[in-house]
Structure formats: structure tokens, C-alpha cells
């Protein structure tokens, strides 16, 4: 008896929260707060990192690119994970909103992966003396970028949104194999790329005075990207639900 009531409550909660209408109104309320707070944190972290941290002993001032490059590559992988999770939610529970989210994450993931690649290349010139190397980490990030492009073009080639959503979900879940490969590639293969500076289990390998702004820039960048995802998902909702009455009321 109790279990059935619990299931009903959970189902009702999921249906209420997962309806595009509720999502839209909640997100509208959240958006300005998220935008200004994360913008403030990001700018603060960037100014701190670029101007107030000490010079690195080995890399000189060029290490300051870490405050751009690391958040971008971190967010690029997390976005893919988010996309795979929402695809799984869509396939298992048929939550439409999850499909919208997966579709709206794809272009932003491609953009973030692109700037992670380019900033990494620029960082490579003063540090390694080469802007591109076919090493494990760089190659697998390039694979991630191609993956995002493939997902976008797959979705765009079908006019039937329902079919396109399902196919995108399958591909996103299969492509999730890439993420552990990217994460572990630096440890598995001896490569030019330095090992991760921050891991959950070990003590960070960089000095605290450089670490705090790095953490802040990661949080701020993730917040900014979340704002972009919100905007993108709003576009998706406008495209898919243009005939619903609440959308017309909202506009």
C-alpha cells in the first residue's frame, strides 16, 4: 500500500517537473540569477588567475591559459555525459523534455569542445613547441568534437522529430564509451599531455594559490554554459511545441 502511494507520488512529481511547461516557467525564473552569479564568479576567477597568481616555474606566464582550457575541456566532457544521461531517461521513461535537452546540448557541446581544442592548440605552441600532436588526449577530444557534429547532423537529417530524437538517443548512449577513454587516455598512454591536475581521490598537483581561481573558473564557466543550455532548450521548446496554448500565452 505504502509502496504504491510512493510510486504514484514519484510518478506525479516526474510528470509535473518533466512537463515542458513547468520547466519553462522554472527556468525563466532561475535564468537571470544563474547568469549574473556565474558571470561574476567567472570574471572574478579570470582576473584573479590572469593578474594575481604567481608565475609558473616551468611554463612561465603561458600556464595562465589553464584558466580557460581546463574548464572548457571539463565542461565539454560533462556535457556529453549529461546528454547521454538525458538520452537514457528519454529512452527508458519516454520523458519528452529529456529529448529536447539532449538535442539542445549538442550544438553547445560542439562549441565548447571546439574552443577547448583551439585553446589547447594555442597553449601547445609555447609549451610543447607544436600546436598539434597525434597524442591520445588530443585525438580523443577531436573524436568528441566529430561525435557532436555527427549527432547534430543525424538529428537534422530527419523531419520526423520523434524518430530523430530516438536515433540521437541511441547514438549518444553508444558514443558515451568515448568519455572514459578520454578521461583515462593520459594515464594509459605515455603522452605529451600532462596528467590531470585535479582528481577526486588524490591531492591536487598544483599550488593552492593557483588552484582556487581554477576551481572558481570551472564553476563560473559551467554556470555560463548552463545558461546557454537553458537558452538552447527554450529554442527547442518553441520549435516543438509551437502549437500548444501555453506557449502562445507565454509569448
Amino acid at each position, binding site marked *: 500500500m505504502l509502496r504504491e502511494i510512493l510510486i504514484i507520488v514519484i510518478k506525479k512529481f516526474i510528470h509535473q517537473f518533466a512537463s515542458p511547461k513547468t520547466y519553462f516557467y522554472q527556468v525563466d525564473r532561475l535564468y537571470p540569477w544563474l547568469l549574473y552569479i556565474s558571470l561574476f564568479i567567472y570574471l572574478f576567477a579570470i582576473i584573479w588567475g590572469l593578474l594575481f597568481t604567481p608565475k609558473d616555474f616551468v611554463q612561465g606566464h603561458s600556464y595562465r591559459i589553464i584558466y580557460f582550457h581546463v574548464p572548457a575541456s571539463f565542461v565539454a566532457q560533462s556535457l556529453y555525459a549529461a546528454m547521454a544521461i538525458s538520452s537514457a531517461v528519454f529512452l527508458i521513461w519516454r520523458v519528452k523534455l529529456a529529448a529536447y535537452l539532449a538535442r539542445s546540448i549538442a550544438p553547445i557541446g560542439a562549441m565548447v569542445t571546439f574552443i577547448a581544442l583551439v585553446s589547447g592548440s594555442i597553449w601547445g605552441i609555447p609549451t610543447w613547441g607544436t600546436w598539434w600532436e597525434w597524442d591520445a588526449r588530443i585525438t580523443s577530444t577531436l573524436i568528441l568534437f566529430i561525435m557532436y557534429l555527427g549527432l547534430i547532423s543525424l538529428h537534422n537529417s530527419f523531419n520526423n522529430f520523434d524518430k530523430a530524437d530516438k536515433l540521437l538517443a*541511441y547514438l549518444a548512449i*553508444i558514443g558515451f564509451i568515448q568519455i572514459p577513454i578520454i578521461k583515462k587516455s593520459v594515464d594509459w598512454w605515455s603522452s605529451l599531455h600532462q596528467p590531470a591536475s585535479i582528481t577526486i581521490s588524490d591531492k591536487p598537483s598544483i599550488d593552492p594559490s593557483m588552484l582556487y581561481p581554477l576551481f572558481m573558473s570551472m564553476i563560473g564557466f559551467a554556470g555560463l554554459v548552463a545558461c546557454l543550455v537553458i537558452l538552447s532548450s527554450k529554442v527547442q521548446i518553441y520549435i516543438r511545441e509551437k502549437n500548444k496554448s501555453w506557449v502562445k500565452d507565454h509569448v
Partner: protein
Amino acid sequence: MKLLLPYTNEALKLIKKTRAWIGPILIFILIMVAFPLTVELSSTNLSDAFYPVLFISILLVMMLATEDIFLEDYEDGSLELLLISKKSLTQWVFIKIFIHWLFIGAPISLLGAFFNIGANNDLNSSLMLLPALGISTYIFLILFCFGNSLSLTKGSVLGTLITLPLTLPILVILGKLTSAIIFNINYFEFLILLFGILSIIIFAFPAIISRIIKTHLE
């Protein structure tokens, strides 16, 4: 005998479509014959370039072989018949991929090992190459089938774009395997790694592909 019936059916279907299986094999032979001609004959570096050319040509040939693997069945309605008849679509996909490997992948692996004798003058490395080629052709075949099932009605460009990122890790392993064969160290590690990948995807992917095909037919 009854168990073998679907296999023979698929094999007959493929044999009738001569272009679909002789074409890729001929293209593979063409690449393998043409590539030493473009290298200067006096050069001793022929064996260095042989393995990359071999692996890339296998990749391309597998792409060609799977280009319209499901398209014909989709267009003549036999896929829908399969769905209605309650036969297992997963099994059908598995059989289809296996038959394609038997008719295209296996000959190409043998030919690749044969051409290796010509390029390297070494029977031992050919014998080491043969199982690796057999496994990797099967893996490529499955991955391209996956890509082509996603882009069933939309042409092979989209399918290739989708499959490319999935095949790159396999190519990296094959690259490592090359040096393992040349220096004769750690050969079995990489072979077992390839075999492990194959043993997972050989059963997982037909199930996924059949679900994707069902989505297309809905």
C-alpha cells in the same frame, strides 16, 4: 539443418548480389597492388608504409561493403515482413553481419596476410597478422552496420560521419599492434584487447541495431 537455414538464405541473397561482395574485395586487391607501384622500387621503406595502408584500406573496404546493407531489405519491404512474422530481428542482424564477414571480411584478411608476405618477406608476421585482421574486419563491419542503420534512408555520408569517431580507437589499437608485430613484443595483449572488444560488441550491437531498425519502421 533447420538452424542453418537462415544462414544459407542470407548467403544466397548475398551471392546473388555479386557487386556487393566482389566489388569490395577487388578494390582491396587494387589498393594492395597499386600502392607498391607508387613507392619508388629501390626504396627499402615499403614494409614501413605497408601496415598503415593495409589498415586504412580495410577500413575503407568495410565502409564500402556495408554501404547499403539494410537499404535493399528496407525498400523491398522484407524488413517489415520480418517484424510482422515475429521472428527475432536481432538474430537476423547477427546472421547478416556474420555472412557479410564470411564473404568479405574473411577473404580480405587472408589476402591481407598474403600481401604481407610480398611486402615484408616474412611468413611469421603474416601468421601474426591474420587473426588481428580477422577480428578487426569484424569489428569494423559491426560499427559501420551501426552507422548505416542509423542513417538508413539518408545515404552513406551521414553513416560514415557517425561511425568515424567509433572506429578511431580501434585504429589506434591497430597502430600499436603494428609495432608489437614488428618488434615481437606484447603481441598477445593487443590481440586479446581486440578480441575482448569484439566479444562485447558482437552480441550487443545486433540488439541495438535491431532496435534502431524498429524505430525506422515505426
